[in-house]
C-alpha cells in the first residue's frame, strides 16, 4: 500500500492502490493512456482512424483478416434478418439456433474431430472445460506462462494445480512422475504463447503426457487458421493432433468474430453440454455472430495462400526489427506475433505513443500479464498487410525507436 493515499479503514479498493499509483505516475510523465485508445472508424482489417489519424493496425490478432470478408459480412446480415439480433437465452434452454449447430459442424469439419461445442467467448471455453473436467483429487499440470483464462478455469475447479517452467519438457515430466498413482491428470498446453509469440514443443510434451496417462488439452487460440497445413494449429504442424484430447480455441483471432470453442474425439464429450456451468448459465452467441463465424471457419480451411503471405510478413518484420537493433521475444519468427522487448515500462509507454503518432497501433503489454516482469510492444501481423505496409511499419519503428532512444 502507498502512504500517500488516505482511504478510510475497510475500503475494499485499498488493495488496488499500488496499481493506481503506477498508472498515475506513468500518465503524469505526459504519455497518453495506452488503454484508452478508441478506434473512431475501422477502415479495413489493417487500418483504422485512431485519434483522428489514419493508422496501420498491428495489434489486433486479426491474423487472417476475415473481419471485412464479403461472404462473412453477407452471412451475418442474412442471419440478422432471419433470426434477429440475439438469442436471449442459454444453449440448454432457448439459446440453440440452427446457426449454432452449423457453426459446430464447421468446427468439426475444420478440425476433423467428432465433437464441437461453442461457448460465448474463448475465456469461457477454458473456464468451463477446465473447471468441469478436473475435479477434486485430480491434478492439472500447466505451463507457468498459461493464459489468465486457463488459470481462472483452474481456480474455479477443485483440482490440485501444478505449474511447470515455460516450455520445459523435463520439468513437465518430473511433475507427472510425482503425481500419486491413480489420480486423474490433465496437462494444459498452448500452441502459441501470446506474450512472446513462441511455439510449444508439443510433440515432446504430448508424448510425455501420454506416457504418464494424462489427458491433454491444447489451447490453439493464436495458431488456428495460420499454423499447420490446414490451419489447425501447432498440434497439426507437429503431428500430434490425434493425441490431443481437447483443443480449445477462440473466434476472436483468425476467425475474426467473438466466441470460443472446444473440439474433442472423446466419446462422452457431449455430456459437457449439461454439466459445464459457463456453457449452461450464460446466453448463447447472437445469430449473426455464429453465422459470420461458421462462414469464416469454412473459408479458413482453404486459406493456404493467405497463410503463406502471413508467414512472409512475419519473417520480414522479425528480421527487419532485429536488424534495426530491437530485442525480440523469439530468436526467429515462430508465429504471427512479434514481441519487441522494451527496456522498462516508462520507455515502453513512450515508444507505444511515438508509434501511435507515426500512425501505427501495437499492444503495450506489461506485468503481471507478461513473463519475468517485462514490458513488451506486441505486434500481431495480418494476412491482409501488404509487403509495402510491412516496410512502412519498419520505417515507423526506426523513427520512433531513435526518437525514444531505444535504438541508435
Amino acid at each position, binding site marked *: 500500500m502507498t502512504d500517500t493515499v488516505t482511504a478510510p479503514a475497510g475500503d475494499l479498493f485499498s488493495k488496488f492502490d499500488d496499481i493506481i499509483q503506477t498508472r498515475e505516475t506513468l500518465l503524469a510523465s505526459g504519455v497518453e493512456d495506452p488503454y484508452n485508445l478508441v478506434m473512431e472508424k475501422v477502415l479495413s482489417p489493417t487500418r483504422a482512424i485512431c485519434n483522428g489519424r489514419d493508422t496501420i493496425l498491428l495489434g489486433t490478432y486479426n491474423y487472417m483478416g476475415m473481419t471485412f470478408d464479403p461472404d462473412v459480412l453477407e452471412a451475418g446480415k442474412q442471419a440478422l434478418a432471419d433470426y434477429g439480433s440475439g438469442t436471449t437465452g442459454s444453449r440448454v434452454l432457448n439459446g440453440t439456433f440452427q446457426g449454432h449447430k452449423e457453426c459446430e459442424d464447421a468446427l468439426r469439419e475444420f478440425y476433423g474431430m467428432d465433437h464441437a461445442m461453442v461457448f460465448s467467448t474463448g475465456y469461457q471455453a477454458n473456464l468451463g472445460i477446465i473447471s468441469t473436467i478436473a475435479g477434486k483429487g485430480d*491434478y492439472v499440470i500447466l505451463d*507457468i506462462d498459461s493464459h489468465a483464462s486457463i488459470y481462472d478455469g*483452474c481456480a474455479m475447479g477443485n483440482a*490440485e*494445480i*501444478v*505449474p*511447470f*517452467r515455460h516450455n520445459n519438457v523435463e*520439468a513437465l515430466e*518430473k*511433475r507427472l512422475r*510425482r*503425481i500419486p498413482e491413480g489420480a486423474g491428470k490433465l496437462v494444459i498446453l498452448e500452441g502459441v504463447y501470446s506474450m512472446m509469440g513462441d511455439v510449444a514443443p508439443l510433440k515432446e510434451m504430448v508424448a510425455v503426457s501420454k506416457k504418464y496417462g494424462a489427458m491433454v488439452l491444447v489451447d490453439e487460440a493464436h495458431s488456428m487458421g495460420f499454423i499447420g497445413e490446414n490451419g489447425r494449429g501447432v498440434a497439426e504442424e507437429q503431428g500430434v493432433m490425434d493425441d490431443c484430447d481437447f483443443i480449445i480455441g477462440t473466434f476472436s483471432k483468425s476467425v475474426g468474430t467473438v466466441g470460443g470453442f472446444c473440439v474433442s474425439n472423446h466419446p462422452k464429450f457431449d455430456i459437457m453440454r449439461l454439466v459445464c456451468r459457463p456453457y449452461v448459465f450464460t446466453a448463447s452467441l447472437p445469430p449473426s455472430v455464429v453465422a459470420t463465424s461458421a462462414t469464416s471457419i469454412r473459408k479458413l480451411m482453404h486459406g493456404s495462400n493467405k497463410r503463406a503471405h502471413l508467414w512472409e510478413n512475419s519473417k520480414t518484420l522479425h528480421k527487419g526489427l532485429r536488424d534495426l537493433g530491437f530485442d525480440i521475444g523469439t530468436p526467429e519468427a515462430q508465429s504471427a506475433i512479434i514481441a519487441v522487448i522494451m527496456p522498462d515500462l516508462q520507455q515502453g509507454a513512450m515508444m507505444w505513443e511515438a508509434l501511435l503518432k507515426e500512425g501505427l497501433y501495437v499492444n503495450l503489454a506489461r506485468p*503481471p500479464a507478461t*513473463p*519475468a*516482469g517485462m514490458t513488451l510492444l506486441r505486434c500481431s501481423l495480418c494476412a491482409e498487410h501488404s509487403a509495402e505496409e510491412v516496410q512502412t511499419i519498419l520505417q515507423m519503428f526506426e523513427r520512433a525507436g531513435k526518437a525514444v532512444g531505444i535504438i541508435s
Partner: protein
Amino acid sequence: MTEAEVDTRIRALIEPFNKKGVEISAATTFANDLEFDSLTVMDFVAEIEDEFDIIISMNQQAEIENYGLLVSAVHKLQDS
C-alpha cells in the same frame, strides 16, 4: 527425515534466493520479508520439489505464507 533435517536442507536451498540476506526464522514470510515474486516462488518451489521428490501444488502454496509453515508442509509431504 526429521523436521530438523528438512529445515537444514531447505535453509541451504533458500540461500541463493535470499538476495537481501534476511535472517530466516519460522515467521519469515515469502511475500513481505523475502519479497519473492511469482517467478521466484516457482523457481524456489521447483528446487524444493526436486530435492525432496515431492509436489507442492499451487493450492498448497497458497497456505504456506512463512518459512515455518513450509518446513512443516515439506516434512509432512516427504513422509506421505
